[in-house]
């Protein structure tokens, strides 16, 4: 269970990126954060991912206050969290498969993870480009590589920032089905999106709308 409790992120300049946001996302649940660009969705996801600390409030995951974790514990928290960032942060000189396998490298070798990585690439229609350096792939392919990378460890939490932004309808549908399957296996899925296709394709997902860093109750 992910719980944001009155989370605020305020820059040193006084600009509030996120203000007093509270929400929950239970295992097996999909929660969509909708809102325009700059509304604070990505910032909130980065706080939940343990990439940055909130200025006030806290993020609690499975009863543990992530926001108060030491750096080492936040590292371990990220290992249990699959993140698809808006800026994909791929290693462009590495192949698609190598990028997908990167989260598994610090862990003890497990052939199952390698098989899962290949299966994910096949499922996301990247099997034929798996050996190619990521820099040679299209924007949509790169996004699907980053998506597969977020799923490779079958994490209990998934934080997806605009997962269908660069996809055509067909592939966006495939990603949506995959997101639903991840939720069905028990993952808590928090999605930031302003793609209406995604919002429409996940009718059972709980929805929040963010405006200027605040969660709009009316949109829920």
């Amino acid at each position, binding site marked *: 269970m992910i719980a944001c409790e009155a989370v605020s992120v305020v820059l040193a300049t006084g600009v509030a990126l996120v203000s007093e946001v509270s929400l929950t996302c239970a295992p097996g649940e999909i929660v969509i954060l909708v809102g325009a660009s700059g509304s604070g969705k990505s910032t909130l996801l980065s706080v939940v991912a343990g990439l940055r600390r909130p200025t006030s409030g806290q993020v609690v995951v499975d009863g543990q206050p992530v926001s108060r974790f030491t750096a*080492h514990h936040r*590292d371990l928290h*990220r290992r249990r969290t699959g993140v698809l*960032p808006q800026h994909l942060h791929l290693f462009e000189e590495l192949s698609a498969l190598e990028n997908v396998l*990167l989260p598994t490298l610090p862990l003890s070798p497990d052939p199952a993870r390698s098989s899962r990585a290949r299966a994910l690439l096949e499922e996301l229609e990247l099997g034929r480009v798996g050996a190619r350096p990521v820099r040679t792939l299209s924007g949509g392919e790169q996004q699907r590589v980053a998506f597969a990378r977020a799923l490779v460890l079958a994490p209990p939490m998934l934080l997806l920032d605009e997962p269908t932004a660069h996809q055509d309808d067909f592939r966006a549908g495939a990603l949506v089905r995959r997101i639903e399957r991840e939720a069905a296996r028990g993952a808590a899925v928090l999605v930031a999106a302003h793609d209406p296709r995604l919002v429409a394709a996940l009718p059972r997902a709980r929805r929040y709308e963010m405006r200027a860093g605040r969660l709009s109750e009316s949109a829920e």
Partner: protein
Amino acid sequence: MLLFLAVFSVTLLLGSGLLVLAAVEVTADRIVEVGPSIVVSRVDAGGWAPIPIEVVSSVRKVRGVTGARARVWGILPGVPRITLVGDPALPEPVELMQGGIVTAIPGAREGDPLELTGLDGRSVALTIVRVLPPETAAVARDVVFVPEGVARQLLLLPAGHATDVAVATIRAEEDAAVTREIARSLGFPVRALTREQMRGAFRTQLGDRGGLWLLFALPAVLGLILVVGQIASGGPNARVEAGRLKLLGWTTWDVARIHLYEALVPSGLAVTTALVTSYVGVFFAGGGPAAAALLGFDRLSPAFTLATSAAPLALMEVAASVLLPTLVAALVPAARVATADPSELLEAS
């Protein structure tokens, strides 16, 4: 590659120098150990003077002395400079043109003629009858053994006189006392050198050259630290990469470890390669340029041989003196990158 070359160069510099210094010290100790306990020379107002051979019997009577022997030897200036040793075991030539000679001069072959010019400028033509084994080059690289009479003629040493007297004693601890006793027993001023003084003089000379070598070595190590630190920090790209890896669940230690591997694996390979090269150069290839520079030789015999017993410790010292600064220089920037907040690292992109 830059890191490998930097570490290799510094280790080679340190390794060659330290191996030569350590090996020469051990070799010199051994040479001094098998040499005379005390060497007695006569001195007068002009410095060294020939010593009458009859004093040998007086020296032998001094308590603590087990043997004394008059030696005829000297230096013949020129290129190459010759250390001429009169050997009573070599037969005196019937004619000077057929004189016998034993040498370790590089390139000398049995049967070859060798012309030596004496201190009075007169030349003597001799024939090489035997060449010393190449392993003796460390002590005999410029030594020529000639019949004692020939040596006297070349060195202008009058009959009945020697260059010095080599003395053997019972106990090294008593050498200083024996030396005073010998000086008292002779009727003229003498200079006596004990083994300990010979070792001290040699170490002082070696220490001076070693100090000059350190003047080169220390800035090289400091430069290496800068290079390693620069490479280990990896620049802005490394910070972004570290941020990306932490985003994927890599811990601080995972990221730091990668940076350390990147610095230490090539460094370890470079150190190993350089130490092997140093060892081969010093002990199998005649000492190399480091030995020539540190010993002040204008050239070295290819068979210049040094004792290897001090090598393991010297190699460990060199490995530690390169790898420890390298480790620290790699660790600090690696830790700085690895412990940074991921969002801060990612914002660098």
